[in-house]
């Protein structure tokens, strides 16, 4: 059974994934997969284990049990920077930009794993290093224009408006040229206009850049609007999975959100 799942051609495949904190199982034997080029959603009430699951995928937490495969390659146990190099990039629920650095530098840092200039390269700057830096800058500027921030490239990232910071985080993650992009509540705190722009942006990232996207989101309009498949977590367990229409009709999901009717 396990072998079958692993060779299924999923971009990401988690098998019986468990993460305990002391006695609490924040993620409890979750089976989860993402298909190539799909926009998948992950929802659940507060404290359901969504962000923990994200942190397991990105290596910020190590699984207590179970395995994670990226393109059939086991990534459970790797460090975050190694997983980024393998092709998973993320944004954070509470925005974590490099506030004291320019917008452009933030995106350049995102490209860290796709560049290689080391200490000696930095000091001597031979033609290869200069070329790499130039290309990294061009790519960063392209990504900034993709998310609509090209005019803000020289500003300190902490001085951007909230919605702009969210978009910058996405551009920064894209600079790592990930196969899989994880978005942790990208619409949180956005006004309806910003949310609409965000939904368009996410669709464009999938269609134009051909990325696979997994998002955690509380804004049901966003999740139901752009996800092709949704998984629902509650108390660390996956309680449902399916198309947005199926999830909206699912009794267990409705119970988890609204409580059991008397």
């Amino acid at each position, binding site marked *: 059974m396990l072998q079958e799942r692993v060779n299924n051609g999923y971009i990401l495949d988690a098998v019986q994934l468990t993460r305990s904190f002391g006695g609490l199982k924040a993620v409890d034997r979750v089976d989860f997969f993402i298909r190539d080029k799909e926009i998948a959603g992950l929802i659940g009430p507060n404290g359901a284990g969504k962000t923990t699951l994200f942190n397991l995928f*990105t290596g*910020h937490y190590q699984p207590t049990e179970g395995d994670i495969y990226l393109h059939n390659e086991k990534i459970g146990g790797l*460090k*975050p*920077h190694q997983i*980024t*190099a393998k092709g998973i*990039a*993320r944004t*954070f629920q509470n925005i*974590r*930009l*490099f*506030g*004291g*650095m*320019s917008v*452009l*530098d933030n995106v*350049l*840092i*995102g490209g*860290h*794993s796709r*560049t290689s*200039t*080391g*200490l000696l*390269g*930095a*000091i001597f*700057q031979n033609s290869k*290093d200069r070329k*790499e*830096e130039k290309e*990294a800058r061009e790519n960063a500027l392209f990504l900034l224009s993709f998310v609509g921030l090209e005019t803000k490239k*020289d*500003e*300190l990232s*902490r*001085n951007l408006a909230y919605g702009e910071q969210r978009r910058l985080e996405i551009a*920064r993650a894209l600079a*790592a040229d990930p196969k899989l992009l994880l978005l942790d509540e990208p619409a949180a705190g956005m006004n309806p206009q910003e949310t609409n722009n965000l939904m368009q942006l996410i669709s464009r990232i999938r269609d134009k850049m051909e990325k696979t996207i997994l998002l955690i989101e509380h804004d049901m309009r966003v999740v139901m609007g752009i996800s092709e498949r949704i998984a629902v977590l509650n108390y660390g367990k996956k309680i449902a999975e399916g198309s947005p229409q199926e999830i909206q009709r699912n009794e267990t999901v409705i119970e988890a959100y609204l409580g059991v009717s008397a």
Partner: protein
Amino acid sequence: MFSAYYLQIMILVGINIIMATSLNLITGFTGQLSIGHAAFMSLGAYAAALATLKLGLPFFASLLFGALLAAVFGVLIGIPTLKLKGDYLAIATLGFGEIVRIVFLNLKITGGAVGLRGIPKSTTLLWVIIAAILTIFILNRILRSRVGRALIAIREDETAAESMGINTTYFKILAFGVGAFFAGLGGGLFSHYFQYIHPGSFGFLRSIEHLCMVVLGGMGSMWGSIIGAAALTAIPEFLRASADYRQLFYGAILVLMMRIRPEGIIGERRSRRKPPQSKDKKLGKINIFKVIGR
């Protein structure tokens, strides 16, 4: 050209610029609070002096030897202290500094408490200027590259930096190694100017002095460290006129400066692409508390 007195001040300014800018790489740019910078300086000073005295190496080779040895210890201190942050790291680097001092105090080859005498006076003002410019040039190149961005990213947000694919462990060790290299260079210049070194030359207070230069000048600012080093070397000399109150004035300047401008003389102006927004004082600050982790 200059009187011996002014020459000595200028040489000290140059050496302190090397010390402050290299400490700034570790503390100001990478955000790793270190109060053991004098230990790296002493390693370079002793190693270079011994290379000259015992091995008969030429001056330049001795300097390089001292700097490299200090860099090795910079890497070695980096490894066990990696997991430490803020004030915990500060205490660990302080402990390292004391260990180095006490080892030099007890080793035969370093002359114990008496120290090393008769080191040839090879350091000239020209050497110091070349070394200082080279230090600033190399540090600037590092800081404006992929490597420098990684270091600053670690200071700004270590978790996010890791998510960007930055091997934070490696880059923190690298910062300590490079910072220690130049501190060792400064030490070698020091021992070959004063011709006499002893463990007391590189005590805890000297590390604090280096940190003061960085903080006063502005953490994360190359010009800040240069100005901070020059100011804190020259001011005590100008205050010699009022010999009795000298230390008092010196201390008062530090207190006032931190009260009025905690971001330092040139706080924040570390990027050549400084946007107009960062002139906003409230937003443009990097203050010491952020680095300490409070």
